[in-house]
C-alpha cells in the first residue's frame, strides 16, 4: 500500500467527521470553525492530488478569509445561539 | 550523505514526538490556559523541529525552511497571547489547582494611552 493512499484515507475520514460535526454543532460559531477545518484538511487533500495551486488558494481563501468574514458577520448578530 | 539523512530524520522524529505530546497535553490539561501552555507551545517547537529536519535532509530547501521557522516563531506567540487575554477578559475560569490570580486582584484595566 502506498503511503499517500493511507494518508488520503485518513484525511477523508477526518473530513467527513468534521463535516458531520459542523451539522450537529449547537452554536453557529462552532459550525463555522468546523467548516474552516474542512477547508484546511481539503487543502492537504489537494496537495496529495497534485494541485498545489488549488491547495494554496484553498488555504488562503477557503480556510482563512471565509472564516474571517463569517466571524465579522457573527459579531454583528450577537444572540445566544450564534 | 547517509549521515545527513539520518540526522535529519531523527530531528523530524523528535519534532513529531513533541507534536504528539502537545496534542496529548491539550486533551489532558484541566483548563484553557494550561491547554494553551501545553498544547500550542509544545507543538510549535515540534513543527519547528520537523521542518528543520526536512531542511537538513534537503539542503536546497534551507531558505524557505528558514523563513517558515521565522514566520511560525513570530506569529504563534502573538495569537496565543491574544487568545489568553480575551479569555481572561470574558472571565473563563481557571482550574481548581490555581494558586494565585494577580490579574484579577488588580481589578479591571485602567484607561491606558496607546502610543
Amino acid at each position, binding site marked *: 500500500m502506498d503511503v499517500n493512499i493511507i494518508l488520503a484515507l485518513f484525511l477523508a475520514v477526518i473530513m467527513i467527521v468534521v463535516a458531520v460535526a459542523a451539522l450537529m454543532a449547537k452554536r453557529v460559531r462552532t459550525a463555522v470553525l468546523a467548516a474552516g477545518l474542512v477547508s484546511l484538511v481539503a487543502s492537504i487533500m489537494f496537495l496529495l492530488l497534485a494541485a498545489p495551486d488549488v491547495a494554496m488558494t484553498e488555504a488562503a481563501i477557503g480556510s482563512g478569509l471565509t472564516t474571517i468574514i463569517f466571524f465579522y458577520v457573527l459579531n454583528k448578530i450577537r444572540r445566544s445561539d450564534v | 550523505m547517509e549521515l545527513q539523512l539520518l540526522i535529519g530524520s531523527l530531528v523530524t522524529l523528535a519534532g513529531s514526538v513533541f507534536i504528539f505530546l502537545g496534542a496529548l497535553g491539550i486533551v489532558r490539561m484541566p483548563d484553557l490556559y494550561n491547554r494553551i501552555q501545553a498544547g500550542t507551545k*509544545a507543538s510549535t517547537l515540534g513543527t519547528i523541529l520537523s521542518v528543520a529536519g526536512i531542511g537538513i535532509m534537503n539542503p536546497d530547501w534551507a531558505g524557505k525552511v528558514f523563513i517558515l521557522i521565522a514566520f511560525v516563531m513570530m506569529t504563534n506567540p502573538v495569537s496565543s*497571547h491574544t487568545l489568553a487575554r480575551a479569555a481572561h477578559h470574558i472571565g473563563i475560569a481557571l482550574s481548581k489547582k490555581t494558586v494565585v490570580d*494577580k490579574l484579577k486582584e488588580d481589578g479591571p484595566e485602567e484607561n491606558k494611552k496607546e502610543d
Partner: protein
Amino acid sequence: MIFVLSYLTWLALNWSVETDILITGAGISVVIGLLFCRNCTVLQTVRLTPKSFAYAIAYVFVFLWDLLKSNIDVAGRVLSPSLPINPGIVEVKTKLNSNIGKMLLANSITLTPGTLTVDIREDRMYIHWIDVSSTDIEEATKSIVKKFEKYLEVMYG
C-alpha cells in the same frame, strides 16, 4: 530599516542571487518602505552597534536552549499520570521601555512553555505560570524575566 528587513526576506524566499531577482526585490522593498509603511516607526529604537549584534546572537542561543529545556520539562509534566501542575497568574516588572523590546520579551516568555503572557500594562506583565514557586513580584521577575531581559536591554534599551 524596513527596506533592509524586506530585502533580506526577499532573498531568503528566492534563495538565489541572480540579477533579475535582485532588481525586483529592491524595487518591491522600496515601494513597501515608502508607500505602505510611512508610520512603521517601530524599528527606529533598535541600536545598531557591534555589541548589540553580539548580544543578539547570544540571545538567540540562550533562547533556543531555554526553549528546549522548558519543553522537555512540560513534556514530563504532561506524561506523568498525576499531572503535577501548580498554575497561577503572577505579576512581573520589566525595565524595558521601547515597545518592540516589550513585544520581544513577551513573545519569548510566551514561546517558552510553562509561561504565558496574559496581559501587559505599562511596565507590568501578568504571566500565567504553570508551576508557581513564589507569588512575590521580585522573585517572580527574577526567575522568569531576568534571563532574557539582560540581552534585550542592550539591544533595545
